[in-house]
């Protein structure tokens, strides 16, 4: 991996609309969480608990084997992402990590992993990590943050899952359909604030749909 300063600037999929806020009303705001690192970890057969433990040990953040749970140290989110999968998300800058570092940490945590970068040169048997596979999705996901008094009402226009405080709260996450698109929803705090992750190619349509759902609150003072 090249040094941090060597890498080009990351271009957000939301470029034309990503000023500081996509929506900035008194009681609801939508913004992009830019240039995130998102690493997917998938555990191999029978290695689920060990993989979770290894992730937790490597990051110092709990890693849940139970569905719908996200743990965070305030900077890095370790998010349940399917029966045998987690998504670890952070902004490298905020978390104080070098680019590529998180991937490496997780890869190490998963155990032996074949060297990358020298493909085809050796005929040696290299095993992939013995606990799980680590896949970089940083550029494949767009992160958005929806926050404010009306955030739940905006979500109610776009998703069928129950986000009522009695049913969903900070520390919980869900993979579901939002505005008819696949998304991961994480509740960050009681404001409420939600982090939403959607695949890169759909980012603009997705942001547009959420923005549309906010319009009702535009005129509130």
């Amino acid at each position, binding site marked *: 991996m090249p040094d941090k300063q060597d890498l080009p600037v990351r271009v957000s*999929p939301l470029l034309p609309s990503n000023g500081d806020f996509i929506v900035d009303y008194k009681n609801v705001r939508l913004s992009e969480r830019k240039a995130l690192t998102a690493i997917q970890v998938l555990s191999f057969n029978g290695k689920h608990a060990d993989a979770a433990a290894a992730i937790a040990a490597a990051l110092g953040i709990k890693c849940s084997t139970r569905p719908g749970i996200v743990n965070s140290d305030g900077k890095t989110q370790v998010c349940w992402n399917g029966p045998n999968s987690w998504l670890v998300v952070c902004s490298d800058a905020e978390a104080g990590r070098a680019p590529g570092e998180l991937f490496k940490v997780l890869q190490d945590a998963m155990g032996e992993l074949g060297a990358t970068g020298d493909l085809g040169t050796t005929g040696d048997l290299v095993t992939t990590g013995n606990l799980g*596979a680590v*896949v970089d999705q940083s550029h494949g996901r767009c992160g958005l943050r929806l926050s404010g008094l009306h955030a739940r009402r905006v979500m109610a226009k776009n998703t069928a899952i129950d986000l009522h405080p009695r049913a969903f709260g900070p520390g919980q996450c869900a993979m579901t359909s939002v505005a008819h698109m696949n998304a991961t929803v994480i509740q960050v705090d009681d404001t409420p604030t939600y982090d939403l992750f959607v695949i890169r190619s759909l980012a603009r349509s997705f942001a547009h749909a959420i923005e549309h759902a906010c319009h009702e609150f535009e005129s509130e003072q």
Partner: protein
Amino acid sequence: MGQQFRTSSSGQIDRGRILSFTFDGKPYQGYEGDTLASALLANGVRLVGRSFKYHRPRGIQTAGSEEPNAIVELRTGPRKEPNTRATTIELFDGLVANSQNRWPSLSFDIMSINNLFSPLLSAGFYYKTFMWPPSFWTNVYEHVIRRAAGLGKASTEPDPDFYEQCHEHCDVLVVGAGPAGLSAALAAARAEARVILVDEHPRLGGSLNDENYSINGKAGSEWVDEIHAQLEEMDNVRVFTRTTLFGYYDHNVVAAIEKVSDHMPVPHQGHPRQRMWTFYPGRVVIATGATERPLVFGNNDMPGVMLASAARAYVNRYGVKPGRRAVIATNNNDAYRTAIDLHHAGINITAVVDSRIQPDAALVEELESLSIRLLTGSTVGSAEGHQQVSYVQIVTTQGDTLDPERIDCDLVACSGGWNPNVHLHSQSGAKPVYDDSILSFVPGKSRQSEVSVGAANGSFSLQDCLAQGVSAGTQAARQTGFKSRKMAVARADNEGDYAIEALWISPTPYNKNYKQFVDQQNDVKASDVVLASQEGFDSVELLKRYTTQGMATDQGKTSNVNALALLACQRGEPLPEVGITTFRPPYVPVAMGVFAGHTVGYDFMPVRRTAIHDWNTKQGAVFIEAGLWLRARYYPQQPGDTMNDCYIRETEATRNNVAIVDVTSLGKIDIQGPDAAEFLNRLYINNWLKLPVGKVRYGAMLREDGMVFDDGTTSRLEENHFFMTTTTANAASVLAHMEQYHQIEWPELDVVFCSVTEQWTGIAVAGPNSRKLLEQVIDIDISNEAFPFMSVGECMMNNIPARLFRISFSGELAYEINVPADYGEQAWLELLEADEELEVSVYGTEALGTMRIEKGHVAGSELDGRTTAQDLGLEGMANRAKHFIGKHNSERPLLVGEGRLQVVGLKSLEPERNLRIGAHLVDPSVKLETVSQSQGHVTATTYSPQLGCGIALGLLRDGASRHGEQIEAVFPLDDETLKVEVCHPVFIDPEGELVRA
């Protein structure tokens, strides 16, 4: 001026807020709180519409959403809404409404001539005639019928408003905010359940707004306000007014429409016109009340004939006198209240006519005390008048109808009894049952988590409604896990008992032929029911379909039970034997916009964009849809450039030099694990176990039925780490297919995989100078020796981490480079700018297609789900010694034998003419036995700059063995025929020297 029919004081209208509106162009005034119907009545407007078939004058029948007659065109221009019930339109300032289905005017309607021909226009008459000459049906008769039928006119302009869809969950959902619903909601809410209360009216209270009841010593409406205030204070309750629950679906999911802005001239900025709510309640309490049914007598459709409860509602709720002199006709106790309330409002009650011989003694006494005349054992035989009632003829119910008494009146308020609103209960899958004591259907055994209470449950006493509400609310909370506290039931201060005796149809005066309407909107008469039954359409469902009873915009809310009862009489069977027709959503008609929500127009489907999208846009690229993706199709360079100009230029630039194309949309799947190779081996028809690390292989997979499913290249990045690409179209289905087989069939395989389509921007670099170009930016040795055809490696492209593949779709020396998507545009620019001398250019999917045809690579149009590997010339890749998906079924006799359509190349034999996709292949020298002479078709065509002629791929019967034949490509849609030569599908570089160079 105007409003001469207002009462002096009653009603929930705001007499201080005067609203102006027009009906049929004429200006009127009403008050805030009015409906269009009440405002029209206040102004003495009786005639508001024409009926469907006979164009008879029609007035206002009801005061609610069950209205069959008073339907108007509301608003104008793009906001015009035909068939809107005047009884549910909240009046707003500037409202414009027009009558419909009449010409030239409402009071003088030419088509009312139909009325005279009604014996000819009996039920089902159109099935019996208009058959000759045959061509006249579509061309003549149908035109006339279509024009005559239908009601209002639609706007043809796009709707300027928008709609939205929301979801909400709760423990207890209460439908209807009358005494029963309010009690239920409060009880459940007190137990701390999450409660939703919906009511279609702007104000809570249900029938309490229409009636003179008092509860706990207060006026009913005061009690309502108190409960409403309590509910509003609790944060576990959401109250939705102007919201009609219209559908009860599976798994206790219900849907409602909220009329957010219909009571305003235009919606507020940012607000939808209407909203669809999908509710997910634990339990539903149905407190939807009951609907009164009319009596069936001669001319019972005339303006001035109204439901007794509606007359009450107009007086009590809207402060309107629906007439000055009223006859009340009934077969039950309830309408007596109409007589009393109307009397107190200053309306002259000329008579109460009760079909029963012995009405309730207390009621008789009460009428006496008010000096209201009561006729028993009698009923209205007919209403008479010109365009509105001026008198009725009273007949006795004993059949002695010869000498009817004539009573003057301008209002007939009638009650044939009450039907509980069992619609939602029935939609939930339950079967309503007949209750002889109220002569109607009541809820049966619940099939989902719902319960009906109050009038909806057939309990017509206010005290019962209040009590049932409390108990249902309490129970619902308990059933959804909440500890309930005891709640006192409110006390109903005044009400009478309900009692009814059957009167399904009145005798007619002088036994004359009268039109006695059952279904008023669809002009179905009692005689139509008789005729249908006589002709054998004597089950309820056949009756409905033959006569159209219950099929109008009101779905027979007021007519169904009467029709069934008449059919039962006709069949000589009890009513429950006859049964009822099916209740279906929506409970009230719902605008299509509501169901569509805001995913319409440009937002119908989301758009998938690649990282190169903005650059492409700036370049003026013309895009093409590939599923949800937008891909650059070609790049016009100057004004007037056609697609042909572009793709030929782009192809030539590629073949002669080097060019790049965005291939991001291909599916990409990362596969890891000790059993990854074995997994691939089962998915693909070819071998994977021995593929060396650092190598790429082209593979094909079949569906289990043996047809080719998808193709693409897969690379071995490490021993246990593969990277698969799929076609753009099948990216999602291939992933799902892999998950299916891994999770269901082969869970023992230790492999994990996920889509990485989005992580990478894919750029193909093709052309003889592609290596030269890449050498400038890539940090690894890509000489032919170090990086031969079908190699893969990780590298840096300048400062961008990348994966490089040496694969070729174009048939040229080519590479594909993948970079993390946020660097995609940068990589693209760097490739374009890497070498000024080289003049790197770009190409789009059209040139991509040209080159793949020249190279004979099969793609989507050949992989059409009907072709086998053999048909496509891919059988050579298959290893039939191993097991793979689809192997067995691909060996079925007719899939391997002769006569299959197989891939061929085709060359135009006429220099100036190109083949066209979709043309069929015909061999003029062979005459087939079938009608069609088609032996196959053209799947992909292009002009080949390389060959200087039009070429194509096609699927031709036994094509693999027919190279060299001259046949025809025909395009009968345009009367075209083209001579073509069948050839090998690979047009250029069949040995593959270029790609290996």
